[in-house]
């Protein structure tokens, strides 16, 4: 089960793209076995500060271990897959 937490700045282009890209990715590769929690930094700024989120959008892969951190709009799919350990071979 893949658990994601995506920190976004709602309304900005990058964050919107990140949400879309993540959803597309999960639909394509992790159908049915993913969980996405979206945290809006504008709504929960203290949480963002406390958890060390400086750049948005930031994607946090909580499960399965290891925990991975990724920054950006997630436009480069190949890199995202590599980081998440989802590159070719794993379904």
């Amino acid at each position, binding site marked *: 089960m893949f658990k994601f937490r995506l*920190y976004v*700045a709602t309304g900005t282009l990058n*964050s919107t793209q*990140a949400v879309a890209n993540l959803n597309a990715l999960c639909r394509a590769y992790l159908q049915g076995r993913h969980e996405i929690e979206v945290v809006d930094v*504008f709504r929960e*700024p203290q949480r963002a500060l406390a958890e060390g989120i400086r750049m948005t959008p930031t994607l946090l892969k909580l499960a399965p271990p290891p925990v991975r*951190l990724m*920054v*950006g709009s997630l436009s480069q799919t190949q890199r995202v897959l590599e980081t998440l350990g989802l590159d070719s071979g794993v379904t």
Partner: protein
Amino acid sequence: MKSERSPAATASRKAPTGIAGFDEISGGGLPRGRTTLLVGGPGSGKTIFSLQFLVNGARYYKETGIFVAFEETSKRIAANADSFDWRLPELRRKKLLFVDAQPKPDLMQSGDFDLCGMLAGLGAQARKMKARRIVFDALDIVLALLPDLTARRREIYRLHEWLLQRELTCLVTLKAAADEPSSITQQPYGFMQFMVDCSVILNHSVVLGVSQRNLRVQKYRGSSFDENESPFVIGKAGFEVAIVRLLGRVDADVTNERVTSGVKRLDTMLGGGYYRAACVLITGFPGTAKTTLSGAFAEAACRRGERTMFVSFDSDGTEVVRNLASVGIRLDRYVKNGLLRMVSARTINGSAEMCLVRIKAFAQEHRARCLVIDPVSALSKSGNELTAHGVAERMIDWSKADRITLVCTSLLNEISGQAEGDDTSLHVSSLADTWIHLSYLVQAGERNRGMSIIKSRGTAHSNQVRELILSNAGVTLADVFTAGGEVLMGTMRWEKESAERVATEVAEVARTLKRVTLDTQQAELEVRLKAVQTELIAKQVERTLSARTTASRKAEILRGRVRMRELRGGDAAAPRRK
């Protein structure tokens, strides 16, 4: 040309940094509610400056602040700040927040990103703390992560908007080599210029082996500022920027009080002594007793109960005390009871600036009223030639402002063949109020020390050269023997003096003898006079007696004739008229 603004108005438009000297240079501090750019190479002090800006804001101006650290961790920064007396841990509870924003080393990146997350968090925090100041330390680190120029510009815009909305006084530090000014105008820093109202450049260079640090305000919109490079040091209290006294400051009260120089006859030559808070310069070749003369001053000051500090560049403090004891100047008891502090300045390495900072710090700690610097010419050694004069100027300014009487000695270099009366590159002689020159006269196989007052402002001083005599009874001055246009000192003087003494004695004896002779003669004459007077009286008596005798005989004869006639029976005819 920037127009003059009233001080009150200016003050509210600027956020004072509280950094010694900087507020004077910048005309009050950093622009309030605007962004200042601080640029410098590695190790130039950007982090310290910006942190000090926040610390002082919290401590003195009731303005809380946030420090966003992009390069060093807040833990490291706080640990490094321990060496200053800022009491940072106290402030960190409520008045100063550290935010770690270092990019994680294992950061994976895909696509474009922005700083909204950070700004959102900071915004909330700033609101909570009611922060007025914010520092972004090493912003270039995070800007470098952004994929392209457009992204960088966009984020800079975003930051600018965010700052404007919250009216925070912002200080951004960037790493750039100060000796490549073009790097500052390059993108994206060049692009940042639109949002930056003030920019300050820190420079740290090594000149002839000595480290020199400089600060320069490159631009300041809407304000006048000192455009020159100002040297600074990083001392115990943090940044200390050097400034010469600016015009318009009120002069220190002038006093007519005199303090003794330690040598009585010298005081007389100076019309009472040195002026309080004056600067006295004692110059001379090596071995002419400059240290001794300044030591005499220190001893006299201590005897008056005034706290004194003796800074020695040439010898160790204890050595100086020992050496002076051999001429009857006992400083050890004052060192013991704490009135006198000896500072061995050879242990201060670094630039002349650093020396001055340390000397000031020691003097303030000791609450010194009298200060000796021996020799002040040491400041211009080893790579400090360019800066030494400025340092000397500022030192004299400071000592006058603090009402400290300053006695400096200065070494003239026999080897370099400087003419007598010439000063070293320090040119302290023109700043000093009193200039005493010690020299040697070589004569008849001896070296004797001569002392003369070259100048003394505000005093009618003697123009004579006196001989300086050191003995284990102390320092004294003797009159130089001048006879027939010859100037004699030392044993020749002593010879001449004894010859004079002998001659005086002989003359004295002769006079006495003559007096005695005359006395005798006078007595003799008085006796004779008396004898003659007695004779005169006797003769007068004789004369009187003889006159009486003649008269009585006449009368007797007459009576006899009358009787005879009577006896003859004649009548008593009327006597014939004869």
